[in-house]
């Protein structure tokens, strides 16, 4: 046989093989491959997630799961690129502040979950994060929120009661600051670079970050309540000097480190931060107390709920299998292996109940986080909220006030304009 004839024969074999391969992939034999993107929880927890997937594969013989752990600063960009390129994963663990953005891009499939049912089964603020125009676009998966963490020993020594309102916090912190000055212990852990420390105070003071007018959101950070809340927090540093001056730049890692080193008497910390502090300084366990957050002048102690939702992307070819996988993943028994590892709670009310009774949140140090989870809110569900966060506008406003040179009214007006502009684009 001449060389060209051999070539044609080989090509034909190749084409036939490819056709045979295509017929297998098309799903006609009932097989499907689900791409799943999950936030990288670290090497210790990766097998936990992998097992949840393997269990699903075992129960559903026609389904193969292709699990990919994603993470890093460009994760958001990865999702945007995947959606724009028409090749997103089938199932993804999407941060709750990103969910409205992708829902508004029409990239997500509606979840097989009605709003009423969702509100009965999951933490309300997490349902809000997955809801757009009355439709639910994801199953709330895990939730993390902050509570009030304090040093029992220091409060006792100074004869200070655990504060129940933010005004009492300021008074107690001043006393603790004075009593512990020689040891360099700050009365209150201020974190100027961490918006979740002070933005929820706007709710406690009776204000809102933004309100919905018709179809769009309008920022209300120039309201009297928002101004008073930001002013109160900034003055903890400028007038009361309750933390080192550098704390205007502190992010959660700095505040957590300071508390772990025994240099902070009270502060607002998330459950996973407390877990990390206790791991760094195990001797703190007997000295620390945790309660729900103090209330503000409006009488509420609502804080922000962080967490993630499990979503199915619209471009997924196997929507039914993907939805079945999501239902499998949110079963409390399949969530807690992961949430215990990272120090957060399942987003389902049944899961929280289970964790508070017999799980990792049954410990008196962690139980208040579960109680506080029921007093959480979500940021304005505008797809542009990510821009507001990413731009650093809220941090810049707080730092301007903490710098002591900027006027409260003009700073908050500027912030309000920046948020409004972000929403309008």
């Amino acid at each position: 046989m001449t060389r060209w004839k051999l070539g044609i024969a080989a090509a034909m074999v190749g084409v036939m093989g490819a056709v045979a391969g295509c017929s297998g992939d098309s799903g006609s034999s009932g097989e499907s491959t689900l791409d799943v993107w999950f936030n990288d929880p670290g090497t210790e927890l990766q097998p936990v997630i992998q097992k949840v997937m393997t269990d699903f594969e075992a129960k559903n013989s026609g389904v193969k799961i292709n699990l990919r752990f994603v993470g890093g600063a460009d994760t958001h960009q990865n999702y945007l690129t995947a959606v724009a390129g028409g090749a997103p994963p089938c199932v993804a663990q999407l941060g709750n502040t990103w969910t409205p953005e992708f829902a508004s891009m029409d990239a997500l499939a509606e979840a097989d979950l009605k709003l009423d049912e969702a509100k009965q089964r999951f933490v309300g603020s997490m349902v809000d994060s997955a809801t757009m125009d009355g439709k639910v676009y994801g199953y709330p998966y895990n939730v993390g929120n902050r509570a009030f963490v304090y040093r029992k020993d220091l409060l006792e020594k100074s004869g200070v009661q655990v504060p129940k309102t933010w005004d009492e916090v300021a008074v107690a912190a001043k006393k603790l600051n004075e009593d512990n000055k020689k040891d360099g212990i700050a009365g209150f852990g201020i974190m100027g670079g961490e918006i979740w420390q002070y933005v929820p105070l706007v709710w406690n003071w009776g204000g809102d970050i933004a309100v919905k007018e018709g179809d769009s959101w309008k920022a209300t950070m120039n309201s009297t309540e928002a101004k008073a809340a930001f002013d109160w927090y900034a003055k903890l540093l400028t007038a009361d000097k309750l933390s080192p001056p550098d704390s205007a730049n502190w992010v959660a890692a700095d505040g957590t480190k300071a508390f772990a080193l025994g240099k902070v008497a009270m502060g607002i910390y998330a459950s996973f931060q407390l877990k990390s502090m206790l791991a760094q300084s195990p001797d703190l366990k007997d000295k620390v107390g945790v309660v729900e957050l103090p209330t503000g002048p409006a009488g509420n102690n609502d804080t922000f709920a962080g967490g993630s939702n499990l979503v199915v992307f619209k471009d997924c070819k196997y929507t039914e299998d993907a939805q079945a996988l999501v239902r499998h993943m949110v079963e409390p028994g399949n969530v807690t292996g992961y949430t215990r590892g990272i120090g957060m709670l399942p987003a389902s009310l049944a899961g929280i109940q289970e964790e508070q009774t017999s799980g990792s949140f049954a410990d008196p140090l962690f139980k208040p986080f579960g109680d506080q989870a029921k007093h959480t809110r979500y940021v304005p569900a505008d797809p542009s909220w990510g821009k507001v966060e990413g731009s650093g506008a809220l941090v810049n406003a707080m730092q301007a006030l903490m710098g002591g040179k900027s006027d409260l009214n003009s700073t908050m007006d500027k912030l309000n304009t920046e948020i409004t502009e972000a929403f309008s684009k």
Partner: protein
Amino acid sequence: MTVEAASRRRLQLKIIPWLLMAPTMVGIALVIGYPFVRTIWLSLHEGRGLRTGAWVGLDNYADMLTDSGTQAAFVRTVILTAVTVIGSMVAALLIALVLNSGLPGMKLLTILVVLPWAMPRVSAAILWKWAFDSQYGVVNWLLSSLGLDMFDGYGWFNNGTSALIVVAIAIIWAKIPFLAIAMLAALKSVPGDIVEAARLDGASAFKVLMRIKLPVMRPVLIVLFVLATIQAFQAFDHIYVMTVPPGGPNHSTEILSLLTYLEAFAFLEGGMGSALAMLTFAVLAVVTALYVRLQREEAG
């Protein structure tokens, strides 16, 4: 050879070089040409995430040039570039002179000088941030131990000026190894007999440096200066890692590269991000043109 064959041969001689260069040129057009044209195109539009929005003409450029934040960032970028380039060049020259001194132990010292080069810039930036931490940083501890009490608990990142000083130190530290090694190589090319003759004539070490060594090193110094300027103008990672929020406090350390990033990836305004990238490109194009001209003068 006929006339026809000769003209065909001439044509072949003209075409063949182009054919040989074609693959490379296609490659360059794909990886440099297309993104460049696309950036210009995008800068003339509204940006919406990954999509190109409506045509806005030169509006993005007008907004950019009249925005006080961008103007301040431009000035900051120029100052930071000047400080880090001059600082690192001078420090590297001094180190290169020491390494070239022929004293014992210089080979070991050369290895030590190169070490920072091997360190990822982001890791180094985090370490510098820790070193300048107000409470637990080694710098404040050292300065206050020396009797400078004002540095006890001093917040370096509390205002733009002191934060930029720390960032500049970190950038200079990262730049020194490459510059020092390149300058050391240039110093080695200075003819020893000329230096010897000058010394015999009574020239001081400073005079030898200014009149003999630096003039001989001039071509290398020009290349290093231009490269360092281009790198410094694009500095990004140090500011991004060391300041909170990136470019803070309260916008006081924002530089052009960071603004470009924020516009493109935080605000998802690809149009404005592209316009800012074009501004950086224009400035660096001028620097490069200057470099080419200086090189021609050297050759001439």
